[in-house]
C-alpha cells in the first residue's frame, strides 16, 4: 500500500510537467496548423501568426516550475498532497493549453484579413492564459504546506 502512495506522490511531482506538455503540444499544434493555413492566404505578417501559435507553450513552463516546487522526498505523509496538487494543476494546464490553441487559431483566422484587430483577437487567448496562471500561482502557494517542503 505504501508503494502505491509513493507512486502517486511521484505522479503528482511529475504530473504538472507531463500534463502541461501534453496541453502545449495540442494547443501549439492546433494554432500552428491555423498559422500555416493563414500563410497561404496572406502576403505579409507571417511572424506574428507564428508568434501567436506559440502562445500555448507557456503552460509547460508553468508545469516545470510547479514540478520543482513539489519536488521533495516522497513519503506516505506527503504523497497525498503531492498527487492532488500536481495532478489537478497539471489538468488545468492541459485544458488551458488545449483550449488556448483554439482561441489562437480563431485569432489567426480573424486577424489575417483584418490586421488591425490582431491585439484584440488575441484577448480571449490571454484570458485563458490568466486561468492557467491562477492555477500555477496557487499550486506554488499550496505546495508550501505539503510535508517535506522545508528540505
Amino acid at each position, binding site marked *: 500500500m505504501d508503494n502505491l502512495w509513493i507512486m502517486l506522490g511521484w505522479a503528482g511531482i511529475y504530473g504538472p510537467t507531463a500534463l502541461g506538455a501534453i496541453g502545449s503540444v495540442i494547443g501549439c499544434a492546433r494554432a500552428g496548423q491555423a498559422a500555416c493555413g493563414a500563410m497561404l492566404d496572406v502576403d505579409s505578417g507571417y511572424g506574428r501568426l507564428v508568434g501567436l501559435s506559440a502562445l500555448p507553450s507557456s503552460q509547460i513552463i508553468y508545469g516545470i516550475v510547479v514540478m520543482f516546487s513539489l519536488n521533495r522526498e516522497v513519503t506516505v505523509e506527503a504523497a497525498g498532497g503531492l498527487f492532488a496538487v500536481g495532478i489537478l494543476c497539471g489538468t488545468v494546464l492541459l485544458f488551458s493549453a488545449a483550449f488556448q490553441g483554439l482561441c489562437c*487559431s480563431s485569432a489567426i483566422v480573424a486577424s489575417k484579413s483584418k490586421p488591425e484587430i490582431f491585439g484584440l483577437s488575441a484577448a480571449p487567448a490571454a484570458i485563458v492564459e490568466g486561468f492557467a496562471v491562477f492555477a500555477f500561482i496557487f499550486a506554488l502557494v499550496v505546495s508550501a504546506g505539503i510535508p517535506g517542503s522545508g528540505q
Partner: protein
Amino acid sequence: MHKYFTLIASLPNLPRHFDVEHLPITRQSLKERLEMLTPEDRALQKQLAEFFDWDRQPLDRSDNEFARELARIETIEHSLIRRIVRSRMEVRTIVSALRRRLAGGTGPVPVGSLAEHIARNWDDPTFKLGSRLPWVERFSSCLIAGDTMNAEQTLLGHTWQAWCTLATEFTFSFEAVILYVARWEILYRWHSRNVSNGQQRFDSMIEETLGGHAELQF
C-alpha cells in the same frame, strides 16, 4: 472527428453579403485547398458538390429521374449534408411550384417533403408558408411582376443568411468546410450571373455600334 485548422485558416474570409463583384477565391484554388480533406470527408464533399451541380440539372430530366436523384442524395450519412440538401430541396420545390402556378400549371411536382402541403394550399399566395418562410411572399411578388433579378436576389439572400447563421455554430470542423463551400457556391452563382449580364451588355453594345456588320462571319 477530424479538425481542419490549416484548411479553414487558408480559406479567405467570405463577405457579409453575397452580391460582390469579385470572388474571394477561385474555383481552382478552392479545389486545391479542399485536397486537405481526409479521403472520407473529400468523398462526402464531392457528393455535396454533385448536389449543387444537380441543382442546375438539365431541363429534359423527368420528375421520376429527379425523385431518384433525391433519394440517392438522401442516403448520405451526414446530418449537416442532409440538412443542407433538404433545405435546398424545400427552396427548389417552392420555387418550382410558384413558377408552375404562374405558368397556369395544375399542381406541384410530386417530389420532396413539401409537395403535399403545397398541393393542399395551392390557391394560397404563399402556399401558407409565408409565416415560416418570409422570403416566399417577396419572391412570389417579384416573380409575378416579372422582376427576375430581385426574385433571384431574394432567393439567394435567404439561402445566404441561412448558411451564415448555421456557420456560426462551427469553427474548424468538416461542417465549417461544407458551409464555406455552400456559401461560396452562392457567391459563384451570383458572380456568374453578373458575368453573363456583362456578356449580354457587351453583345448589345457591339450590335448598336456595328449594326448589321455585327452579324458578319469571317
